[in-house]
């Protein structure tokens, strides 16, 4: 049986803690145990709510002390020099065992367009480092533009609400390098329907912890009317394949 990998978690202190206290690595691990999830990809809350330079280092440190957690880095466009040159940043990601890049263009006030993020997207594409973006941080048009301009970049679209079907069916059809993170895609039998239309390979399990949680979001896949092999792919196999594809 393939190991379960939760591709979308955040740990650390936040301005408005969902639990009324910090969502720590230890709390996440307990929730993973409850849902029988073996590994989780985490970015640090400080990378999102303070600054990536601080939070990314914290994510690597948490992963070092919690072997079940895999670090994700939050990236910015390079022009302000808040981050190193794109090729160097991605090189350091690979050296640090980072398995996923994330961008929050709405919260962090930048454009994903080529004139802004083209160089960093190209650097990620060169290494086949997966990039996860929340749909609520951008637009489907922008996602389509990224996927088209960077066909070798594995793009994972997250925060995809249950009402988005008329957008994302078209988007998945138009963009072969696009995948959907499943936590917020809670459409009725939505996993089954996307699986039938586009194949299980296009879906990646994530819990969006701590806003959502491992157990309930995994149920959307565990109870989908699809084969066990398809469930295994969505729950972990697909992300494992993406990790294997990262060029060292």
């Amino acid at each position, binding site marked *: 049986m393939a190991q379960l990998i939760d591709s979308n978690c955040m740990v650390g202190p936040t301005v408005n803690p*969902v639990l009324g206290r910090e969502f720590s690595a230890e709390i996440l691990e307990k*929730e993973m*145990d*409850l849902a029988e999830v073996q590994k989780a990809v985490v970015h640090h809350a400080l990378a999102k709510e303070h600054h990536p330079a601080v939070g990314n280092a914290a994510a690597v440190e948490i992963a070092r002390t919690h072997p079940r957690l895999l670090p994700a880095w939050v990236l910015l466009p390079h022009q302000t020099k808040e981050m190193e040159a794109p090729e160097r940043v991605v090189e350091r990601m690979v050296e640090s065992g980072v398995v996923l890049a994330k961008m929050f263009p709405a919260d962090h006030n930048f454009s994903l367009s080529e004139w802004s993020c083209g160089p960093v997207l190209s650097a990620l594409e060169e290494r086949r480092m997966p990039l996860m973006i929340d749909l609520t941080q951008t637009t489907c048009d922008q996602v389509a533009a990224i996927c088209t301009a960077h066909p070798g970049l594995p793009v994972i679209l997250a925060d995809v609400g249950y009402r988005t079907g008329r957008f994302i069916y078209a988007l998945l059809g138009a963009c072969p390098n696009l995948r959907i993170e499943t936590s917020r895609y809670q459409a*009725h*039998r939505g996993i089954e*329907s996307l699986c039938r239309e586009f194949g299980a390979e296009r879906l990646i399990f994530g819990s969006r912890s701590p806003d*959502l949680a491992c*157990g309930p979001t995994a149920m959307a896949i565990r109870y989908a009317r699809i084969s066990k092999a398809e469930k295994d792919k969505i729950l972990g196999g697909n992300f494992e394949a993406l990790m294997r594809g990262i060029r060292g």
Partner: protein
Amino acid sequence: MTGRLAEQANMGLPLDVPIIDSHAHLGPYYNFHIPFNDPEGMIQSMDALGIRTCCIAAHLGIGPDFRAGNDVALKAATDHPGRFIGAICINPNYPEAILSEIDRFTGVDAMRAVKLHPALHNYPADGERYRMVYEAAGKRHLPVASHTWAGDKRCSPKMYAAIAKEYPETTFILVHSGGEPGPIIEAIDAAKQAENIYLETSGSLTFRTVERLVTAVGSKRLLFGSDMPFIDPAPQVGKVIYAPISEDDKLDILYRNARRVFRI
């Protein structure tokens, strides 16, 4: 510690409790694509999870034609006895038909509740036309399930404490319990003030509120709801069974309370 229900869920097995879903719908919807929105498609979802019965309000009923929508719900409940019970949708923008529509289902056992949607119908929960509904429903022992959303002046949960106290014979179900995790305190406050208020669990955002609701008002005042087929029921069931509450509390929420409220 993993509970019995969570263990079953980790294996994707039907849960061995007769779950009653107090908030569901039926049919297509204008705003977005809903796969498998017919009774058969929903029953397949119900069987996978162990949901025995759903209380349904047809999308057509909360939408443009409440009378035709009520016929859709009645047909599903009649065609699939025991699997569906209907909620009578009332649109207050057709005031002349409010009481006649409730009366149309007098003695119709398949229709066990009244469904109101102040947001879609753009009419305040404390308006006169809804007051007619609260009184009529109370007399007929039909619980009133109303969409609620924190911050919405038409149906904020805090509006319902005064309403429920004014109609003590009527059972009120605050659908979504206000819908968002932070302001759920409004629904809690309302339930604390009026014993004839039940709080319902459905929503795509409220994944960590069940424990808070149980702590604040007790499991006897909570009803599981899925909002199917707007939303897939599996994660909604998961919100209850993975919550850090006792297995006994989970059973209250998943079906015991609903048996009482819907006379099942």
